[in-house]
C-alpha cells in the first residue's frame, strides 16, 4: 500500500511537471507581448524594452520557465498584470468559492444518482428504468446554459424561489452564499446526476448477474440484506471513481455555469485571465486545476483500493 501510494505521488509530480511545461509554453505562444499589454498601446519602444529587461523577458525561455516554476513551488505566484496585486490570494479565494458550489452539488447529485441508478438496475428494462435512464441521458446531453436558463426562467423568475443571479461578493461565507448557490448547484447536478446514475446502474446490473448474488439469494437472506451487504458493496466501486473525477470538473470546469449565474468561482477567473491576457493569473489558475484533477484521481484510487479487498489485502 505504501509502495502504491509513493508510486502514485511520483506520477502526480511527473504530471505536474509536464503540465507546467505545457502551460508555460502555451502562455508564451499567446499573441501579444506582455510588456505591451502592461504599458498599453501608446507606450514607446524604449519603455517596452526597459520593461522587458526588468521583467526578465529577454532571458532564454528555459531560464524563464525554471525561474517561474521555482517561485511557483515556493508559493510566489507573481502579481496580476491587471490589478498589480499578488495572484495567490485571488486564486485561493475563488477556489474556496468553487469548493462551496462543488460541495453542495456533490451532496445533491451523488446520493440521488446512486439511488436512481440502483432503482433503475433493480427494475431493469421496466418503466422506472426507462424513465430514469431516458431523463438522465437527456440532462447529460443538454448544455448547462440551456438547463441553467430553464431553471432561472422557472424557479427564479417564475416562482421566485431562488435568486436568478449569483454574483455574490467573492468574500462571502458559506452561510451568506448558500441561497445563491442552490440554482447553480442544481444546474451542475443535473449533468452530474446522469453520469452517477448510469455508472451505478451498469455496475449494479453486472453484480446482480453474478453467481455470488444468486448464492446470496439462495442462502435465504432477506432481500434488503442481499442488496445492501452483497450487491452494493461491489457495485458502487466504479461509482467512486466517477465521483472523484467529478470533483476536478466541479472545481475547475464550471466555466459555463459560473458564467450563466455570474458566480465568482475559479472557472470565471480563468476566463477573465484569458480575456485580459493576465499571464501570471492564467498560469496559476491552470496549475491549480491540474493539481486538483491529479489529487482527486489519487483520492479515487485510494478510496477504491480501501473499499476493494482484492487490492487492499494481497493474496
Amino acid at each position: 500500500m505504501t509502495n502504491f501510494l509513493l508510486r502514485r505521488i511520483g506520477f502526480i509530480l511527473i504530471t505536474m511537471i509536464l503540465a507546467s511545461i505545457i502551460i508555460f509554453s502555451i502562455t508564451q505562444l499567446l499573441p501579444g507581448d506582455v510588456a505591451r499589454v502592461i504599458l498599453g498601446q501608446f507606450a514607446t519602444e524604449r519603455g517596452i524594452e526597459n520593461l522587458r529587461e526588468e521583467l526578465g523577458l529577454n532571458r532564454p525561455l528555459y531560464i524563464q520557465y525554471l525561474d517561474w516554476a521555482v517561485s511557483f513551488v515556493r508559493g510566489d505566484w507573481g502579481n496580476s498584470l491587471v490589478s498589480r496585486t499578488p495572484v495567490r490570494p485571488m486564486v485561493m479565494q475563488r477556489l474556496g468559492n468553487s469548493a462551496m458550489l462543488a460541495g453542495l452539488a456533490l451532496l445533491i447529485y451523488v446520493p440521488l444518482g446512486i439511488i436512481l441508478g440502483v432503482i433503475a438496475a433493480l427494475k431493469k428494462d421496466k418503466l422506472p428504468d426507462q424513465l430514469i435512464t431516458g431523463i438522465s441521458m437527456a440532462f447529460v446531453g443538454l448544455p448547462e446554459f440551456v438547463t441553467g436558463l430553464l431553471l432561472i426562467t422557472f424557479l427564479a423568475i417564475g416562482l421566485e424561489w431562488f435568486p436568478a443571479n449569483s454574483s455574490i461578493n467573492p468574500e462571502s461565507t458559506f452561510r451568506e452564499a448558500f441561497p445563491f448557490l442552490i440554482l447553480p448547484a442544481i444546474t451542475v447536478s443535473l449533468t452530474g446526476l446522469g453520469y452517477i446514475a448510469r455508472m451505478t446502474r451498469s455496475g449494479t446490473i453486472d453484480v446482480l448477474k453474478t453467481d455470488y448474488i444468486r448464492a446470496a439469494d439462495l442462502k435465504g437472506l432477506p432481500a434488503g440484506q442481499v442488496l445492501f451487504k452483497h450487491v452494493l458493496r461491489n457495485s458502487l466501486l466504479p461509482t467512486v471513481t466517477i465521483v472523484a473525477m467529478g470533483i476536478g470538473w466541479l472545481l475547475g470546469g464550471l466555466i459555463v455555469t459560473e458564467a450563466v449565474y455570474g458566480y465568482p468561482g475559479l472557472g470565471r477567473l480563468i476566463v477573465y485571465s484569458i480575456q485580459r491576457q493576465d499571464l501570471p493569473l492564467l498560469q496559476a489558475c491552470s496549475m491549480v486545476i491540474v493539481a486538483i484533477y491529479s489529487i482527486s484521481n489519487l483520492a479515487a484510487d485510494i478510496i477504491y483500493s480501501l473499499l476493494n479487498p482484492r487490492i487492499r489485502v494481497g493474496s
Partner: protein
Amino acid sequence: MPKKVLDARNLTVTYRTEKGPLDTVRNVSLKICSGEIYGLVGESGSGKSTLARAIVRYLPENGFLKEGEIYLGDTDLLSLSKAQMRRVWGGRITMVHQDPNAAINPSVMIGEQIAEVVRTHLQYSKKEAKDKALEMLIRVRIADPEAVARRYAHQLSGGMLQRVLIAIAMATNPELLIMDEPTTALDVTTEAVILDLIGDLMREYDTAVLYITHNLGVVARVCNRVGVLYAGEIMEEGSVGQVFKNKLHPYTRGLLGCVPRVDVNKKDISLKAIPGFIPRPDELPPGCVFAPRCELVEEACRKERPLLKDIESGHLTACRRYEVLKSYGEVIADQRQLHERTESGELVLEARNVKKYFPVAGRLRLFGKSKRQEIKAVDDISIRMRHSFTMGIVGESGCGKTTFARCIMGLEKATAGEIELEGELLPYSVAKRPRDTLRKMQMVFQNPDASLNPQHPAGEAVARPLKLLRNMNNKAVQERVKELFEAVNLPEDYIYRLPHELSGGEKQRVAIARAFAADPVLMICDEPISSLDVSVQAALMNLLVDLQESKSTSYLFISHDLSAVRHLSDWIAVVYLGRLWEIGSAEDVFVPPCHPYTEALLSALPIPDPDIKQESIRLRGSVPSAMDIPSGCRFHTRCPRKIGEICEKEEPPWQSIGYYHQICCHIPAEELQALQGEGLLQKGEGMAE
C-alpha cells in the same frame, strides 16, 4: 427406514422465448431420500441446471413451471409465497454452485458468509454464529479456520473456496442439498479431495443430495442413485450398480462408450461416439427424443414417446427395446488396428532446457536493492518427439504445460533453451520464424469460440493458411477447403457458415481443419476437447487419431484430462511446477504409475465404473506459486511418499527405467514399482491387458 425428502412429480419447465414457449424439461420426476446422493447426469443443454432451479423455484424471469408438484418433506413448495421460499432457501434447501471463485462474494469475509446464514435461519446471536462458522470450517477440514474466516475469496484457492461453499451449505443442516457441478472447475487432484469430503460429510449428516454433473466417473465415485437426463427427459434411472452394470438405455451406453478408459488406448479401440447432437427444445423429434441418434431405433420408436418404466426393483428405463439391449452385453468399443510405426523415425521436435520466466511487476523500494521476482512458469523442460507419434503432456493447472506449448509455438518468447524442428534451430519468437516453419507447426486452441473470427465464414478460416502459407491459387484453395471439410466430417455447406451458427464441437472441427490446411508436421493441441461434451469429445478424439493415421502428423497433446491423454498418446510427459517429473511410453507411465505425482494424478481420476477399486492417494493443498518454488524436490510439499530431509534439500536425480522411461525422484525406481503392488487398478473382468 430413510424418509423421502424430495418428491418432485412430473415437472415440466417452460421458457418463454422469441419462438414461443419451449418446454426445456418435460415430465421429470425425482425422489430423493435422506442420506441418499442422487446423481443427475447429462450433457450441456440436457436441462439439468434448469431442473435444479425449478426445484428451488429460482428460475430466470422467462422460465416457469408449467406442470408438476414439488414436495419437500410434507411441504408443498409450490404453495409457498416468495417470502416463505426465502426461509426454505438456505435453511431447508441449500445449494453449492459450479464455480467456487464466482459463487463467493469478493468483498465479504469468508467467516461472515457462513455466519450470516445461521443468523438468518437459526436465529443465532453474533457470537454463536461466529463460533458456528469456525466449527463448519473445521468440519470441511480447513486448517487454521480462524485465519481463513477473516480472509477474502481472492486469498483462497479454488479447492478451499469449494470447501467454504460446502460449509455454507451444510451450516443449517439442510434437508436437501443441491450441488451443481461442484467439482467441474477444479483440478483432478482437488476434485478427488472434494469428492472424498462430500462422501465423508454425507455419512455424518442425514441430508438428501441432488448431485448434478456431466461426469460419469464422479457419479460412480460418490452417488447411490443416478438419473440420466437427455434433452429434458430422464432416460434411465436406478442405483449406481444397476445403471453402470446393466445400462438399460442406449444413451447411457453411448455416454459410457465415449469415455476413454485407462487400460486401453487408440491402438486397440476407437471410442464409440454418439452420432449427431442433442436436439434443441424447439426441434424435438415426435417419438423418443434419442431416436435420431440411436443405433437400435425402429419405426415404433419414432412414433410414440416411450414412458419411463420400472424394469427391476427401482431400475427405470425409457427405452422400448431394453430387452434387445440386454442381450448385447457389455459396451464393446470398436477394435482397431493402427499401422505399426517405427520407433526409430526421425526427430520432429527437440526442445532442450526450455525456460520461460515472467517478470513480476517490480516493487518500488526506497532502501536496499529490490529483489527481482520472477514467475518460473517453465523451468528447464526438455522433450524429443519422433515423426507421427503423439506426446501427451499432463499436469495440474498452473504447472506450465500451456506456457511450454506456447514457447514451442513461439507465441511466448522462451527465456532460455533450444527448440529444434526437424533438426533446424528455431528463433524464439514466431515473428522471426520463416514461413515454412510456420507452416510446419500448427496449433489447435482450447476455446474454439475465441480462436475463430466471428465475422469470417468457417471456410475462410480454413482457406487462410492455404493462401498465406502454401501460396495456392483461388481455385486450388476452394478444392482443398472442400477436401478438408470432408476430412473433419463437416458437410460442405458449412464452409459458408459463420462460427456462431456452429456448435462447439463443429467449431473445433473447423479449427482442426484450419490447422491441417497448412499440412503441418507437428500439431500442438492445447486442451482441444476440454470445453466440449463427452460424446463430442469422443468423436473429436477419433477424428484426431484418424487424421494422424492418414497424414502422419505428430501431435503434442496438452490436457489435464488424464483419460484423454492416455487414449491419444504414445508418449507421456508429466509436468509439475514448470518441470518434467516422468517421461515414457503411455503404458510405462500409467500402467502402473511409478512417480508419486503420476500415481496421485491417476488415483484422483474418477473412473466411470463403480467396480474398479482405486487407491486413494490424495495430494494436500494446491500447487505452490511458481514465484516461490519449494527447495529440493519441488513436489516435496505435497508428496505422499516423501522420505525425509533429502527431499527438502536436494534436487532429485533422473533415473532410467526400461525403454526410454525416466523418472525424477529420490526414491529408487525399483522401490516405487514395488510399492504399486498389483497396480493402480484392481482390474475387474473384461479389462484388457
